[in-house]
């Protein structure tokens, strides 16, 4: 087991290194001239040169990468071109906000997804099963802003229950903040629900058809006891791993949802940075997203291995 985790960690580190090279390539080598991008098309050649010199973008590429990654490893993420603030400060605030939103989304989606999946499995083949399966998967393949717009129209405009924007006024208490975060969290929930429900359904169906469930029924245990004690305990194992994987997907959706609801998390920060060509911010936020994603998949893999010993053998396929 320890060997499996160590190997998985080692692979994760290699992936992380490659990721940093890709990010660096996309943000430093691809844009041929950051000085021109910042100063605009009408600035003089001398100004552009001066900016490039200040930024250090006129140095050899290897030196630039070494400096950048060296800084990253020491917690120095550089300074934002647009805001003239250390990127690490901006990232800290944004990450805190994104985590709040992500946590709320998970608090909503995990119980809902499990409930939906179990309800679906218990009604296998009936209309409720079809509704949950087809509806959940349709919502899962839809871009986040499509569901977001629908939710916005219903809950903010039509019913008027929830605020349109997630940007709460300063001094809003923690509990009040939840009201502002509900709509964006629901938009994320729509997308994630289908996957969790599907995995839970599959796990539950398998357990329901198993011999020990039949034995439990034959023993004369009431349906409720069988489902709570025998079925759920075993069927939820795969769900746990899927929830960890979903964290990675969630991050991708944050850009869209935070933009739609004007919420200043990592996603909105990345969105603004891409439009302002603020490369240090793009680099750091993309790298952060990659790290979170890798950690999430790593957790998912380890959890699956712990929960299912069969996976530990032959884990290098993939």
């Amino acid at each position, binding site marked *: 087991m320890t060997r499996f985790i160590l190997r998985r960690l080692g*692979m994760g580190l*290699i*992936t*992380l290194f*490659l*990721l940093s090279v*890709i*990010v660096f390539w*996309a*943000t430093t080598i*691809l*844009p041929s001239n950051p000085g021109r991008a910042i100063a605009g098309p009408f600035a003089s050649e001398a100004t552009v040169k001066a900016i490039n010199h200040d930024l250090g973008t006129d140095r050899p590429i290897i030196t630039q990468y070494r400096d950048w990654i060296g800084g990253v490893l020491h917690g120095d993420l550089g300074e934002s071109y647009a805001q003239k603030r250390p990127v690490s400060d901006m990232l800290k605030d944004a990450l805190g906000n994104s985590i709040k939103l992500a946590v709320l989304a998970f608090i909503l989606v995990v119980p809902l997804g499990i409930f939906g999946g179990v309800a679906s499995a218990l009604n296998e083949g009936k209309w409720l099963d079809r509704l949950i399966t087809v509806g959940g*998967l*349709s919502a899962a*393949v*839809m*871009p*986040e*802003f*499509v569901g977001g*717009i*629908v939710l*916005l*129209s219903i809950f*903010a*405009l039509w019913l008027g229950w929830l605020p*349109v924007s997630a940007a709460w006024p300063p001094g809003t208490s923690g509990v009040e903040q939840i009201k502002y975060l509900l709509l964006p969290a629901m938009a994320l929930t729509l997308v994630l629900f289908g996957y969790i429900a599907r995995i839970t359904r599959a796990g539950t169906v398998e357990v329901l058809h198993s011999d020990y469930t039949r034995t439990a029924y034959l023993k004369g245990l009431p349906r409720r006891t069988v489902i709570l004690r025998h079925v759920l305990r075993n069927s939820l194992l795969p769900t746990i791993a899927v929830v960890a994987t979903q964290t*990675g*997907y969630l*991050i*991708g*959706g944050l*850009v*869209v949802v935070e*933009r*739609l609801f004007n919420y200043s998390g990592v996603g909105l920060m*990345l*969105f603004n*940075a*891409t*439009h302002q*060509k603020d490369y240090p911010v*793009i680099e750091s936020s*993309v790298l952060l*997203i*990659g790290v979170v*994603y*890798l950690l999430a*998949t790593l957790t998912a893999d380890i959890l699956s291995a712990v929960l299912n010993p069969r996976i530990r053998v032959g884990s290098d396929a*993939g």
Partner: protein
Amino acid sequence: MTVTAAEENNPGVLQPAAETAAQARRETLRLIVGSKTVWVGTVILAFWIICALFGTHIAPHDAYQQDLLKHNARPSSEHWAGTDALGRDVFSRVIVGARNILLVAPLATLLGTILGTALGLTMGYFRGLVDDILSRLVEAVLALPLVIVALTVLAATGTSNIALIVVIGLVFAPIIARTVRAAVLSEREQDYVTAAELRGERAPYILFQEVLPNVLPPIMVEFTVRVGYAIFAVATLSFLGFGPQPPSPDWGAQINDAYALVSAGFWWESITPAVAIASLVVAVNLIADGLQRAVTQ
């Protein structure tokens, strides 16, 4: 070329257990044609393809025609989905706007499928070091959500359809390569590959003439599934401002322009393109799902 004997000894998951390849194909086709979900998906998709091809002729109004006196007008018998902030007919813009997404998404997927198939064939056939190196690279690319990679690259290259197609294609390539690799790995053990090797055929011949035809069904399923993801990505990127620039009609861009007005009560300007995106994504996924069932059965 008969693969029947090999199949009996080593029943691959991807090969339908029919007596001949032709019979298997007919059976698969029957399953696809007989599937209700595939039909529903095809009808919706066909509607949008017709809009993409002949949109300007079908649309009830000129998609570019502004009418500032009738801006933000509610849906009516004249303007079925109302008008936008510049008085343009929302429904006509949705009809004409089908073209961009239906051009970029399939082309991007096609690029990714061609690259990914070549890569996957190589990885699965040679295995060893080539496979290890490529697998790590694939994993690094997969560590970022598609939209994030595309955003990063588009921020550097600027927005254009070519850039969109290339970025999405390049991200899809390793994902598709993984599917192809897995299919090739099981195919590689078949007798016909050994036979070709013993005949002294060269690797490219074996890969493209012998192995490729046998892994085509999973590749086609993967293509359809990926088209769905590409539509997701293209719509999302144009919503984030990295799609066609105004005044070109485009679904994502339409929502980007109009969603701030939802709170003012002008919901139709965003909901109409949102419904269009939803219907297209669901249609493609219905087809992909049907194909998947037919091929794996």
